[in-house]
């Protein structure tokens, strides 16, 4: 059987960064990618604004990807494209199929870097007909930017996540009419700069506290019914109105793609929807690590690459049998957080926490609490669900904690 020190699943931002870092240390790496080229979702994100942290310049998605792929090829990392994994077993054997046939690899370590999927119409259950013309925003983006296919001439976008906003501008630039964007929450889920550059610049209306309550159309989408929602997100029937459109884009969130992780029996956090991990990115199965969007959804690719780098360091330590201490601290949160990572902290090093809050908050203090005492805190003027937050917990703080600690939001006043 083919044996490898490390098999990386996914050739996007996280997988490429990890592959480069591991190969530089002389590790025998095999990277497996499902698509026909490396680079992942970056290849269809033709807008710019990527790389400010990692490369100190603003790149487009394809340029960012190309930089990573170039470094990858210079190191002559082995990889397979057009390859589909059918099985990952807890003993780290991996079965995959490519043009040459069926292969089995025995890996010493595995890095899960499969990225995310988009939530679909099925996930959010819009009533009405089932005509052609309803797409997820990312699929429409791929059709347009790689294949040159336009999904419609009169488009409505449901959800104000960044992909939806970017697509509103993109469609406008190819002279489709973007009739509007609806967001069920009373605030936008996208970055402010995207609201301005993508909607305000082109006078595209944003309907807050509004959702699509019906789709009408025989073969093709003909019209949609929009309704305002109350504070419990329930549509208010008397507010309903119709708009004529020929396509609907859904930008209603991403879900980490963990079908393979679950097949391997890895424990998944129902809140982040990614594997439960320790401070070294190791999942519930020793030797299997996870990083990037498969772990939790990021806003900025630079931090996806960074997670790839850090997972590579952890994999290297594992392969060199640098035993981590068994003692860990369980991290929990109060109800203000959607999730926080990692799930267990390592008291022998600085730990970087990542978290997302449930609703917008102002002038608060994010506190790490242990045994009823605040052991570390950071003041925050603004916290938004749309923005992934990070904080470093110094090692000397964690050394005072025992067994567990909890992340809480306290009023600054």
């Amino acid at each position: 059987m083919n044996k490898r020190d490390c098999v990386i699943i996914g050739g996007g931002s996280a997988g490429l960064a990890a592959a480069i870092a591991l190969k530089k240390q002389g590790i025998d790496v095999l990277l497996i990618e499902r698509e026909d080229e490396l680079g992942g979702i970056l290849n269809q994100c033709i807008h710019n604004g990527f790389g400010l942290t990692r490369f100190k310049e603003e790149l487009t998605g394809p340029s960012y990807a190309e930089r990573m792929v170039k470094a990858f090829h210079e190191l002559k990392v082995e990889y397979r494209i057009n390859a589909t994994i059918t099985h990952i077993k807890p003993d780290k054997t991996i079965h995959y199929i490519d043009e040459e046939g069926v292969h089995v690899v025995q890996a010493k370590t595995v890095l899960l870097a499969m990225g995310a999927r988009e939530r679909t119409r099925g996930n959010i259950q819009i009533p009405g007909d089932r005509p052609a013309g309803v797409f997820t925003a990312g699929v429409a983006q791929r059709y347009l930017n790689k294949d040159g296919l336009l999904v419609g001439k009169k488009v409505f976008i449901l959800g104000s996540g960044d992909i939806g906003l970017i697509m509103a501008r993109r469609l406008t630039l190819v002279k489709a009419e973007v009739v509007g964007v609806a967001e069920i929450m009373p605030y936008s889920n996208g970055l402010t700069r995207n609201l301005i550059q993508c909607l305000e610049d082109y006078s595209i209306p944003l309907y807050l506290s509004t959702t699509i309550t019906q789709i009408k159309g025989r073969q093709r989408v003909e019209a949609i019914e929009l309704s305002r929602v109350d504070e419990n997100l329930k549509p208010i029937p008397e507010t309903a109105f119709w708009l004529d459109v020929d396509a609907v884009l859904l930008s209603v969130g991403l879900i980490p793609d963990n079908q393979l992780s679950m097949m391997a029996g890895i424990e998944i956090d129902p809140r982040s929807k990614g594997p439960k991990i320790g401070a070294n990115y190791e999942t519930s199965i020793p030797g299997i690590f996870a990083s990037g969007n498969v772990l939790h959804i990021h806003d900025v690719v630079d931090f996806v690459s960074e997670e790839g780098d850090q997972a590579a360091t952890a994999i290297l330590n594992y392969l060199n049998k640098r035993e981590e201490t068994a003692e860990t601290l369980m991290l929990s949160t109060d109800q203000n957080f959607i999730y926080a990572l990692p799930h267990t902290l390592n008291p022998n090093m600085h730990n970087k926490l990542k978290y997302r809050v449930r609703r917008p908050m102002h002038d608060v203090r994010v506190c790490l609490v242990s045994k009823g005492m605040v052991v570390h805190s950071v003041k925050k003027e603004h916290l938004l669900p749309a923005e992934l937050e990070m904080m470093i917990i110094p090692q000397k703080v964690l050394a005072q904690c025992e067994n567990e600690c909890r992340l809480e939001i306290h009023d600054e006043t």
Partner: protein
Amino acid sequence: MKHELTCIVCPRGCRIQVWEEEGVHRCEGNQCIRGEVYAIQEVTEPRRMFTSTVQLNGSQLKRCPVVSSSAIKKTDVFKVVDILENVVLEAPVFLNQVVIKNILESGIDIIASRSIKKDAEASD
């Protein structure tokens, strides 16, 4: 006249008021100098980075992504769109290859934002 705008330099999103006083622009509401620079640029001559795609032959990929070498005037955006509608690139394409030099006499180039190999199988 007073303009009110939301700063997009950082996530804080300050509401900034900008007005002209004896030929000088003044700002209020910004919490840092970068906000002032943004706000004055935005009311005098707003600029945006431009990205789009152009038609591509000789590859399985049908479009080649392009980017402006620096931010173009907001009022030029649709003029650039019209010019790019008539551009056809042939694979191979190189990263940063100039697609249109000095577009609209602006001193700014439109360049390819990735490289694309020529595809042996691509027939059209």
